[in-house]
């Protein structure tokens, strides 16, 4: 499931719903991305998406992740608009039969969301506002997935 929303994320509620009634899965890995204050240099974030385009892009990413890591279910919820420090920006959850698949699926999704997904992020702080671009480490993280697909079995 995919959702973009301007309202706060109830990550716990999302996790409970995601885990509910699943006797077929062994593990659920979730990632919650929070807006850091960066030692006072950040007071908030502004996130912009391209409605219609962004959801389609994420849906395609989820299909790739589900196939590559044999995921049984995947959830991506992303905030847009103004986000205060300490609030959740993104919540990703992956369900799989074995835990390794769920870990790798969530890791793969986050690396791609971080540096490839159609979002634009502006940081607000005492020193004004500026747009954030992925850092070189984000591109390095992404490169990890360019090798052959995982052959882990658990």
């Amino acid at each position, binding site marked *: 499931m995919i959702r973009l929303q301007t309202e706060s994320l109830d990550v716990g509620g999302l996790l409970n719903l995601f885990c509910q009634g699943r006797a077929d899965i062994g593990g659920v890995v979730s990632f919650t991305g929070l807006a850091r204050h960066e030692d006072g240099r950040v007071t908030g974030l502004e996130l912009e998406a391209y409605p219609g*385009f962004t959801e389609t892009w994420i849906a395609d990413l989820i299909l790739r992740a589900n196939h590559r890591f044999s995921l049984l279910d995947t959830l991506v919820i*992303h905030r847009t608009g103004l986000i205060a420090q300490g609030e959740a920006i993104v919540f990703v959850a992956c369900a799989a039969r074995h835990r390794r698949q769920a870990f790798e699926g969530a890791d793969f999704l986050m690396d791609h969301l*971080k540096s490839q997904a159609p979002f634009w*992020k*502006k940081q607000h702080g005492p020193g004004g506002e500026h747009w954030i671009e992925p850092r070189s480490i984000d591109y390095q993280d992404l490169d990890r997935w360019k090798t052959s697909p995982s052959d882990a079995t658990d």
Partner: protein
Amino acid sequence: MAKVLLFGPLRDLAGWRERNFDGVADLAGLMARLDPELALAVNGPGVQVAVDKAIVRGDASLGPRSEVAFLPPMSGG
């Protein structure tokens, strides 16, 4: 008429988010109509172009209701 959408820093640079351009037949023609500073920016590194929500590379013809989006480097999560 083509509808042009700007995202992220491109929007701040241009001072607008959405604008209609009449009488443009293709991307090259549209580019020629943009302010020089914006034209330079949309041709900058990492900027992708989507026509009707599909990424295009190089030139592309535009219909009367085409939506053109200029997408600077992205950063989610």
